[in-house]
């Protein structure tokens, strides 16, 4: 028993490194899926890594209007992403830092990161980036309650407030889980600035949300921003996979991690498919989409409390 627990925590540490190493690959998979849908060959799976390595070797240019906030934001963002990665369980392996109530910590670590991105965007003094910041804040203010209601549902089902215990305690198939997963998927797309909310490819000013906030970054800072975004994709994805993929308690830890990784790949494929078949919705419709996700989550909560 002792050795098993040690093995589990060893896997938690391994998950951290796996997350560090494989998070950009997920972005590569999404891009490749979109390329295949569009009939192109697409960039190599490892393109995000090449981009980041290239960016890390370059020098950064800072505008004279910016202050230390602008320089601090990418580092804070990366730290937040790492902290979030440490909380999320993967497969049967619990999160490295799991404690009672860590779901609130999880949500606000992501919130802190967003806060820094936003004030850094305001710090540049560009009206354009301010507009993006305003949109980001508006949408995340609506996405966050959905995330919380979804997590509250899972907490009600399992009677636990720690992400690792919640996910380990779930047993499938439950109707609530399907609803929560759908709601969380919408949050996932919104938080990662994916297509129904924001087009990661666009450089057309009026439509951009996330991209516009990081326009002034260059070199290693931009690399950090991109890498933290990839980690965020991984972290939120791991949460959804943890909730939706049923895993047997008795399964060896490495096997469960393998399943979870397969789940992540499927999620990346699904994201690519959604991006290929859907158009970005109008900005005015975004709150409606998030409200629909909220409706699903609240439904699930009502179900779970019956």
């Amino acid at each position: 028993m002792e050795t098993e627990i040690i093995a589990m925590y060893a896997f938690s540490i391994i998950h951290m490194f796996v997350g560090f190493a494989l998070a950009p690959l997920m972005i590569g998979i999404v891009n490749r899926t979109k390329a295949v849908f569009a009939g192109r060959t697409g960039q190599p799976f490892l393109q995000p890594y090449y981009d980041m390595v290239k960016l890390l070797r370059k020098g950064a240019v800072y505008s004279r209007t910016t202050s230390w906030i602008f320089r601090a934001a990418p580092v804070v963002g990366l730290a937040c992403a790492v902290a979030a990665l440490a909380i999320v369980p993967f497969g049967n392996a619990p999160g490295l830092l799991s404690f009672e109530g860590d779901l609130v910590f999880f949500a606000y670590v992501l919130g802190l990161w967003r806060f820094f991105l936003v004030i850094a965007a305001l710090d540049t003094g560009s009206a354009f980036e301010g507009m993006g910041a305003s949109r980001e804040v508006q949408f995340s203010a609506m996405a966050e309650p959905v995330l919380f209601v979804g997590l509250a549902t899972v907490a009600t089902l399992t009677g636990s407030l720690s992400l690792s215990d919640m996910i380990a305690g779930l047993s499938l198939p439950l109707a609530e889980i399907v609803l929560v997963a759908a709601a969380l998927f919408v949050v996932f797309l919104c938080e990662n600035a994916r297509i129904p909310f924001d087009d990661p490819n666009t450089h057309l000013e009026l439509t951009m949300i996330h991209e516009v906030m990081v326009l002034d970054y260059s070199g290693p800072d931009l690399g950090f921003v991109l890498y933290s975004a990839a980690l965020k994709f991984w972290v939120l994805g791991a949460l959804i996979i943890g909730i939706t993929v049923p895993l047997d308690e008795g399964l060896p830890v490495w096997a469960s991690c393998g399943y979870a990784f397969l789940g992540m790949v499927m999620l990346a494929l699904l994201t690519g498919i959604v991006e290929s078949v859907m158009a970005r919705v109008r900005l005015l419709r975004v709150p409606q989409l998030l409200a629909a996700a909220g409706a699903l989550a609240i439904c699930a909560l009502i179900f779970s409390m019956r």
Partner: protein
Amino acid sequence: METYIEASVILLLLTDIALFGTSRLYTCITIAAVQGVLLGLIALFANAETFIPRIIVIASIGIVIKAFVFPYLLKRTIRQAGVQREIQPFIGYLSSLVVSLVLFGVSIWFSAKLPLALGAGRSMIIPAAIMTMFTGLFLIVARRKALTQCIGYIVCENGMYLFGMVAVGEIPALVELGILLDAVAAVTVMGVAMYHINREFDHIDTDRLSSLKG
């Protein structure tokens, strides 16, 4: 079977909520059609152990009418009237979604008060039936286009059908067929009425009909 019933009931609830938030009339019609199919499936699943031909026949007729005949009639009406979407409903779509959640809560609370003996895996059917009725009534009250109100009528009928299926159990075949026939007749008549409203006023907004009163 319980799992299938439960899944269909959940999907039914989701179609209800979708109806609250959809503005495109084509989508509304499709959702109502999906709802008809789900109802038929629930009826079939609920009686899967006791193989009664009568129920299978009635469920199949219901599916055919609700999934093919109604959408056909309504889509034809849309083409004639040339409307695509419900533009300014009395209650906006965001508020409608909020209302849907409140109604969902109310229907759960309400069904808990009803003294009904239900089998395993069917605890959600009564709330779903009440919710579906609420959805239909809401569409009738809160939407402006005659077509959406007609869909509301169909949805309301769906809810009553589901409620009757669970609460009463043995409804004579003649009665069920009679109800279906009534629904078909009603939808046909509403289609004709909408055609005339459209020809007379160039739109199918029902709120202006009240100006006809002398």
